[in-house]
C-alpha cells in the first residue's frame, strides 16, 4: 500500500516547528552546530503535532471533510463522532471484528486501528460512498437478493471487504471469498449468504439449498 504524504502537513508545519524546537528537537536546537536553514528544513519535514487538536482533512467518498482532532483520534472515531458518516460501525475497537472496515484507495483496512491523521491523503470510501445516486452497486444488489444481512451491523464491513476483493480479483473462488472476509465477524450468522452474494456479484451462479416439504 502506498503511503501518500498527508497533504496538509505543510499548512501547519510552521506553527508546530517552534513547538518541536521546544520539545523533541531540543537537543538539535541547543547544539547549534547546524545552520538555521538546515534546521528549518528538517523541522518542516518532521514537525511534531499534538497532543492537542490539530486540523485534519479527510477525503471521504470524494468529499473533503475538514476536522480538528487530537492525533489519538482514530479514523473510525473521526467518521462516527466528528461527522455524520456513521455507516462504518464500531464492533470491537480492537481490529478484530471488521464492522469498521473502510477502503483506503482500494485497500480494506480497519478504521478503528488507523489514526485519522494518517488517513489524510487517501481516497477513503465508506459504505455511504458505494451506491452512486442511489443506485446500489452489484455487490450491494447481490447482498439484497441473497439476504446476506440480518441485523445489518456487520454488513457495511462485509460490503467493503467483498467490494475490495472483487476489484482485485473479479473472479474469486469460494476460498478467495473466505480468505478476504475472514476478518469480518457476523453474529447473526449471515456467512453462507455473504459467500453466495460475493460469488453472485462476480457472476458465479449459486443455488439455494433449501427444500420445502409439505407435511400433509
Amino acid at each position, binding site marked *: *500500500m502506498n*503511503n501518500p504524504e498527508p497533504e496538509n502537513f505543510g499548512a501547519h508545519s510552521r506553527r508546530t516547528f517552534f513547538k518541536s524546537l521546544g520539545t*523533541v528537537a531540543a537537543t538539535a536546537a541547543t547544539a547549534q552546530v547546524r545552520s538555521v536553514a538546515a534546521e528549518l528544513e528538517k523541522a518542516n519535514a*518532521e514537525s*511534531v*503535532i499534538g497532543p492537542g487538536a490539530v486540523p485534519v482533512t479527510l477525503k471521504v467518498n470524494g468529499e473533503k471533510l475538514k476536522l480538528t482532532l487530537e*492525533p489519538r483520534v482514530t479514523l473510525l472515531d473521526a467518521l462516527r463522532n466528528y461527522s455524520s458518516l456513521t455507516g462504518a460501525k464500531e464492533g470491537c475497537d480492537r*481490529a478484530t471484528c471488521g464492522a469498521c472496515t473502510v477502503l483506503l484507495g482500494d485497500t480494506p483496512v*480497519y478504521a478503528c486501528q488507523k489514526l485519522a491523521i*494518517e488517513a489524510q491523503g487517501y481516497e477513503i470510501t465508506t459504505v455511504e460512498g458505494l451506491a452512486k445516486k442511489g443506485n446500489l452497486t452489484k455487490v450491494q444488489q447481490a447482498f439484497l437478493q441473497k439476504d446476506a444481512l440480518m441485523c445489518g451491523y456487520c454488513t457495511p464491513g462485509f460490503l467493503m471487504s467483498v467490494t475490495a476483493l472483487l476489484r482485485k480479483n473479479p473472479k474469486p473462488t469460494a476460498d478467495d471469498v473466505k480468505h478476504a472476509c475472514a476478518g469480518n465477524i457476523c453474529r447473526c450468522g449471515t456467512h453462507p449468504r455473504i459467500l453466495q452474494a460475493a460469488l453472485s456479484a462476480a457472476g458465479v451462479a449459486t443455488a439455494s439449498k433449501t427444500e420445502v416439504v409439505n407435511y400433509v
Partner: protein
Amino acid sequence: MKAFQYATAHSTDSARELVAGNGLYLAGGNDLFGLLKEYLVGADLLVNIKSLPGLNKVEHGKTFWTIGSLVTVAEIEDHAEIKKVFPGLHDAAAEIASQQIRNVATVGGNLAQHSRCWYFRHRDTQCLKKHGDLCYARDGENRYHSLFTGNSCISPVVSSLATTFAALDATAIVLRDGQETRMSMAELYHGAWENPLAHNSLDKGDLILRVEIPTTRTRSAYLQVSDKHAFDWALVSCAAAAAVVDGKLKSPRVALGSISPVPHQVEAANSFLDGKVLDDATATQAADLILKDAKPLEHNAYKVPMAHAIIRRTLLKLKGDA
C-alpha cells in the same frame, strides 16, 4: 489511549532522535494500538516511520533476498516471486490475521510485536511481564502458553514470520545506536528467553530495517494449527526449510512458534536431518528430538502431539513434487 504527540520521520536519524524521549515507533499500528488502548504501554510521541526511505522494498540478489521492514504482510502474500522462491514465507504471511490487518501490518511490526498472553494483554492483571511478581498463567489458564521457557514468564512468541525466517536462517538488520547490527532470529528473541519483561532483544530506539534471507534453502514450508480455520492465532506453528540435493536434505532447519518465547529450534534435530532422505520415520525422529525437553503445563500439554504432527507434516511438505 492517552493523548500523544505525533511526528513523521523522514530519515532513520530523525526517527531515532524523535523516539528518544518517551516515544514509540508507529508503522502498521496493529500491535501498538492494542497496547495503547489497554494502557499497557504509554507514549508521549508516536513516530510515524512509514515514510522512511528504502524500507518498503523487496529486492533480491543471487545469494539472498532483502525484505524491507515496512513491506506489508499483504505484499509478501501477493508477491509472486516470493511464493515461488520461499513458499513457506508466502504461506505464513497468508495465514496472518485478516486481510485488513495484512494490508497494514509490516514485517518489522510482525517481528517486534509483543506477547499475546491474555494476562499480559489484560488491563487489570499485574503479571511478571508488567513488573508484577507473578506469572498468572503458570498455574492458571495456560492453554495458549509455552512448552519451553528460560524464565518464569511462559508467554510464547507468536510472530509466524519469525518462525519462518528462523527456518530460512534469515538475518534481521537492526539499527541500534546509529549502527546496523545483524541478528539471527534466535538473537532477535533471546531477550524474551531470559527476561520476563522482554518480548524480544530489541532495546528502546532499536529499529528493524530489513530482513535478509539466504537463497541456499530452495524448499520451505509453513503450517499452523489454530482453534479456528482463519483469523486465529496459531496454537502451534512450524516452518521448515532446506535445500534438497539428490533427494537428500541439505542445511535443513525447523522452527516452531507459539511454544516458546523464541522461535523454537533444536540444533540436534537440524543436524539429524542433514543429509537424510525425508520419509515418515525421519520426520518422526526429528519431531521427537525437537520436542524432547518440552515441559507441558496443566492446560497446554496438547501442544506436544499437535506440534509433533505438524513438524512431520511441514517436513514432508518440503519433499514437494520432487
